[in-house]
C-alpha cells in the first residue's frame, strides 16, 4: 500500500510531548511495559504518555512505531540513488509506482535545478551488489515507460560524514 504524505504542516508539541520525544528517539524500552518506563522518565502517568503518543501518531508527528532494518547488515550491501526526469503533472503517479517496489526504500519528489539538474524524482534502490541495483533501475525504467524522460543512478563512493540526526533533547 502506498500513501502520500504532505510534509509541510508542523505539529504543535508542548514541553511534555518534547520530553516524550527525547525519551524515545533512541528507541522504545524493551520492557513488558515500555510506556510505563517512558512515563517514569518523563514524570507523568503512563496513561498520559499513551494518550500523547496516540495523538502524535494521529497528527503525523510520529510516522509509525516500528523497526528500522539495517539494510547493509541484512545483505543489501549496494545502494544507489536513482534520479528521474518525469513530467511534473504525473510525478505523483510515477512516485507511487516505483515507491511500491520491494527494493526501493525512499522515494521523494524534489525540485529540478536546470540546467545542472533536470531530475524531479528520487528513489533509493537497494541490492546485494551494484549490478543488482543497475538491473533494478532498468526494471524501473521499463515500468515507467514514457514517463521516464531521462534517468541516472548515483552510487556513493565514500562516506564523508555520518552523524545521527537528533530531533529534541
Amino acid at each position: 500500500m502506498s500513501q502520500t504524505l504532505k510534509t509541510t504542516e508542523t505539529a504543535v508539541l508542548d514541553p511534555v510531548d518534547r520530553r516524550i520525544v527525547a525519551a524515545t528517539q533512541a528507541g522504545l524500552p524493551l520492557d513488558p511495559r515500555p510506556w510505563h518506563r517512558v512515563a517514569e522518565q518523563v514524570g507523568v502517568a503512563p496513561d498520559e504518555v499513551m494518550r500523547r503518543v496516540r495523538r502524535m501518531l494521529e497528527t503525523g508527528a510520529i510516522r509509525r512505531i516500528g523497526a528500522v532494518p539495517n539494510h547493509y547488515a541484512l545483505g543489501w550491501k549496494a545502494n544507489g540513488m536513482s534520479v528521474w526526469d518525469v513530467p511534473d503533472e504525473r510525478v505523483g503517479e510515477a512516485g507511487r509506482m516505483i515507491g511500491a517496489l520491494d527494493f526501493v526504500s525512499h522515494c521523494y519528489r524534489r525540485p529540478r535545478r536546470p540546467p545542472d539538474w533536470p531530475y524531479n524524482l528520487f528513489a533509493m534502490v537497494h541490492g546485494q551488489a551494484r549490478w543488482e541495483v543497475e538491473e533494478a533501475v532498468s526494471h524501473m525504467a521499463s515500468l515507467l515507460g514514457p514517463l521516464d524522460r531521462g534517468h541516472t543512478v548515483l552510487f556513493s563512493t565514500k562516506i564523508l560524514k555520518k552523524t545521527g540526526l537528533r530531533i529534541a533533547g
Partner: protein
Amino acid sequence: MDARDRELINALHGGFPVEERPYAAVAGSLGMTEDEVIARLARLLDARMLTRFGPLYDAVRLGGAFTLAAMAVPHERFDEVTEIVNSFPEVAHNYARNHDLNMWFVVATERPEGIGEVLSQIKDRTGLDVLNLPKEEEYFLELRLPA
C-alpha cells in the same frame, strides 16, 4: 536472522500497538510469547540487524527542517571543501558520489530559516554553488523483507 525474525519485523511494519503490554499483543498475533518477542528484538538490535526500534518521528512536523544539497567540487579541492562542509554541525550526512555533482549532504536545522543560512555560508566559504533539493513530497513505503 531467521524466518521468525523476518515475520516479526514485517508484523511491526503494520504498526505497534500503544497499550500497556504491546509486546504481548504483537506476540499473540504471531503465536510467540511476550518474552520471545522482546528477546528477538534485543538480539536483532545487538547484532545491528536493526538500527533502532521505537517511534519514528517526522522531524519536519516537529518544527525542524531538512534538505538534501549537492555540489560540483573540483577534484583538486575535494578534501578542502569536505573539511569546510563537514565543519558545520548542521551537516548530518555527507557522501561522495560518482557524478559531476560529486558531493551530496543532508542539512538539518531546528528552524526552517536555518537551511538557507547554512547553505549560503557554505557557498561563501567555498566559492562554489550549492544546489538546494528539499523533499517536496514523499511516496512512503517500507522495505519489505522476503519472508
